[in-house]
């Protein structure tokens, strides 16, 4: 999100789910939309049905390709090269929106200079897609009345994630596809309330509403509101925190509703870090792999057991309502936090969640007009500044949040974890339709759990033949971080040389293989590109 924030001044989805249907062309980059965000997948499929053009950029033949007009099966990790080549075509063919560039942006010359090196014929060699295809995609996107970009972790979870996002922003600004229905740059948020957790400043450098901890005025405002002094030192990101824990710098962790042992890169490293802690608190619904390492485990409440709000990927704040009571002594996380905070000497006393929202609205301008009463008649998209403001479906309509949009001159840098003779395959990880995240919830939902109960690694038929493996045969996938035994699913979805593994399964934890190499700005690990080796193996014994 750092990339978008730098280009536009705000890191959130610029447009709305509902207005994707107004696009004539939708460029989908690194998003397996129909599996990871099925309802947005429906919007895309509907658009395709109505004759809109969908262009998919993905090294893997995701299901959406069946509905797409064009599929650019690029080599993993080469998004920037492709996007630069597309922009080069747009410039060369006079398809850029000069007046938009002139009136609403800055830094264009820097981009122009960079693009000189990215002739489609040259880029074609890097990305494995013909120059003709690159041109067709560029022309389609640039000549549409309204063209939208949708992206997801296939863009951000790279060492060059921020660069890739900025490149997408460049493309949108170059063609003036911003601020109107059916345009924009639209990151899809993976979990239900990623957007909200960010808005609420569960980020080491921010205070609610993206105020900065290192900005004196911002901090002063919150010190006043909260009646206490605040640290001006940026905190550690999750991955940095794990490193620090392993180094002994961090000694205690309080983990609420997360399962880093399975979800974070380099599992061995995570376990080492957590085991080294003096004190670990885990608050969750189940005895997760992480909770098993804790000193204190606190039983939380599921989302159907509590009141509150979630903010979805299109910045829509919506009500969450208690449907059923929590089992046994399990308690809502809010109640647990307020009690612990009070014992820690910082008393919190909210009679119910609506009072928290009232406080949020007070200290967070973009949530300023949000109340539970208003949410009862439907969600509101922030910024929603006052109680009469009807929300903002499209950001940057008149001007960018930061004033002018900034073009970033982004160069393509190949992933550092390059394949070599020892690790000749690229492994990419992601989600599958019927499982969610670390499978904690989905494996415990009868029926759903039976649809995709075990992990498989997708192997291209040619690779499978060369390895001499068939469906359900076992192979060992190894990286510099570790090794995992997993069953094969022969599939023409991944490109030759590419493997795909879901990260849902504890029996075959994909993150045992991934590394913590990360984007220098956003600190997001490059989970989508890992060099690995593969060899057939025996089925592991079940006591495992």
């Amino acid at each position, binding site marked *: 999100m750092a990339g978008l924030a730098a280009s536009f001044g705000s890191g959130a989805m610029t447009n709305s789910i509902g207005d994707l249907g107004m696009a004539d062309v939708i460029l989908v980059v690194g998003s397996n939309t129909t599996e990871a965000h099925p309802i947005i997948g429906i919007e895309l499929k509907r658009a395709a049905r109505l004759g809109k053009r969908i262009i998919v950029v993905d090294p893997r033949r995701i299901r959406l390709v069946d509905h797409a007009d064009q599929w650019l099966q690029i080599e993993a990790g080469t998004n920037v090269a492709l996007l630069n080549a597309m922009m080069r075509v747009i410039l060369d063919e006079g398809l850029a929106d000069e007046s938009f560039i002139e009136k609403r942006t800055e830094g264009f010359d820097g981009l122009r200079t960079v693009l000189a090196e990215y002739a489609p014929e040259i880029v074609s060699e890097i990305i494995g897609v013909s120059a003709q295809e690159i041109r067709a995609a560029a022309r389609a996107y640039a000549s549409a009345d309204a063209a939208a970009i949708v992206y997801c972790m296939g863009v951000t979870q790279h060492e060059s994630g921020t660069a890739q996002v900025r490149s997408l922003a460049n493309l949108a600004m170059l063609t003036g596809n911003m601020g109107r229905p059916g345009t924009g740059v639209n990151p899809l948020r993976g979990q239900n*309330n990623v957007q909200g957790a960010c808005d609420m400043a569960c980020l080491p450098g921010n205070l609610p509403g993206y105020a900065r901890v290192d900005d004196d005025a911002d901090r002063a405002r919150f010190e006043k509101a*909260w009646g206490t002094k*605040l640290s001006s030192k940026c905190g550690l990101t999750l991955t940095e925190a794990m490193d620090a824990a392993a180094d002994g710098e961090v000694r205690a962790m309080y983990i609420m509703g997360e399962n880093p042992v399975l979800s*974070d890169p380099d599992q061995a490293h995570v376990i080492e870090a957590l085991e080294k802690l003096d004190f670990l608190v885990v608050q969750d619904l189940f005895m997760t792999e992480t909770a098993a390492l804790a000193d204190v485990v606190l039983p939380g409440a599921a989302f159907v057991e509590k009141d509150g709000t979630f903010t979805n990927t299109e910045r829509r704040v*919506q009500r969450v309502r208690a449907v059923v009571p929590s089992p046994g002594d399990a308690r809502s996380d809010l109640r647990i936090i307020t009690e612990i905070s009070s014992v820690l000497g910082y008393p919190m006393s909210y009679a119910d969640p609506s009072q928290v929202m009232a406080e949020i609205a007070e200290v967070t301008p973009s949530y300023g007009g949000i109340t539970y009463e208003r949410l009862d008649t439907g969600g509101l998209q922030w910024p929603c500044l006052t109680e009469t403001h009807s929300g903002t479906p499209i950001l940057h309509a008149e001007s960018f949040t930061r004033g002018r949009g900034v073009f970033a001159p982004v160069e393509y840098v190949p992933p550092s974890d390059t394949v070599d003779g020892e690790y000749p395959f690229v492994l990419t990880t992601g989600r599958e339709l019927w499982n969610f995240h670390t499978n904690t919830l989905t494996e415990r939902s009868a*029926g759903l759990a039976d649809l995709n109960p075990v992990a498989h690694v997708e192997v291209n038929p040619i690779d499978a033949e060369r390895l001499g493996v068939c469906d359900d045969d076992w192979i060992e996938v190894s990286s510099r971080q570790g090794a995992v035994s997993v069953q094969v699913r022969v599939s023409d979805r991944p490109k030759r040389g590419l493997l795909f593994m879901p990260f849902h399964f504890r029996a075959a934890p994909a993150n045992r293989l991934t590394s913590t190499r990360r984007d220098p700005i956003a600190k997001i690990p490059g989970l989508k590109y890992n060099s690995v080796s593969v060899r057939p193996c025996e089925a592991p014994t079940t006591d495992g």
Partner: protein
Amino acid sequence: MNDTNPIAVQLTIDGEPIQAAPGGTVLDACRAAGIHVPTLCHDPRLEPYGACRLCVVEVEGMRGYPAACTTRVADGMVITTENEVLRGLRRTVVELLLSDHKLDCLTCDNAGACALQDVAYELGVSESPFEGERHRAAALDENPLIDRDYDKCISCGRCVRICEEVQGCSVYSSTFRGFDMLPDTPFSASLLDAGCEFCGQCVSTCPVGALSNRGQRFTGRVWELQSTETTCGYCGVGCTVTFAHKDGVITGASAPLDRGVNRGNLCAKGRYGHGFVAHPDRLTTPLLRRDGKLEPASWDEAIAAVAEGIRGVVEEKGPDAIVGLASAKCTNEENYAFQKMIRAGVGTNNVDHCARL
């Protein structure tokens, strides 16, 4: 729907002057005006189809009895939605449907939410004067989630259409023709083999009990269930979902057609992924590690232990030796309180969550 053409169309429906949006159907106009016209094959998520013929109306100047769901409104239209002739026609349609429908309303989970039951009641059809051949097909339960009982199918095509038009999956098609026409998978394959994504959209649109959610079977009559609308807790789309529940247990999930980003649609996780809530693995009591083992404890003990553990580290290494990881699964209010606790209560900015994963 663009702003330059806001001129409403003037209609007369059952003698009342009505304004309607241009481009819509007579059925849309009736519904918007609160006039009830019975339908079976209509779903606002789908393109007009006109197969059940229940919504026949009279329109002055039009031949015969056009279906309200497929007739576009035009300025000056004079429409009659209700009279003896129309009731008679609709009654015949219902009688025909009942003549080939398994009437097991006593044990059908859809009883009370069945559109065929509703129209039969509305038109006073208690039995069909027609007898003859009926479909006899074994109920199918070859997959873990969706039951199919084609003896109850009224061949309205809604499942076929929603799978194609909305879900883009085309798992079903109408197969064979005439009296033998039924929705089915190719070669009657199981839903799993037919490429089903188990979104359950077909179940949600089925007007009768031909498609049903296995998990809901015998969990409660429709009228015993309570329902609560909330926001789905899986991915970032934020679908509006209505949970049906009875005695504190969730029995099923659906979505309202007219609200939310999802407008009645859900995915497999949203519709079928709520079993974990009542799973026996749920943690129901705080646990404290004693002698290397996690053992049950009271909340007071647990909270004291947390406070003590944190305080100990702060005292020894300072607040920056503490890290709080919040959750993208928790509510805004919880996350707000959490970071506030870490920042204001502990005194560090070491707070993050899994946004990067």
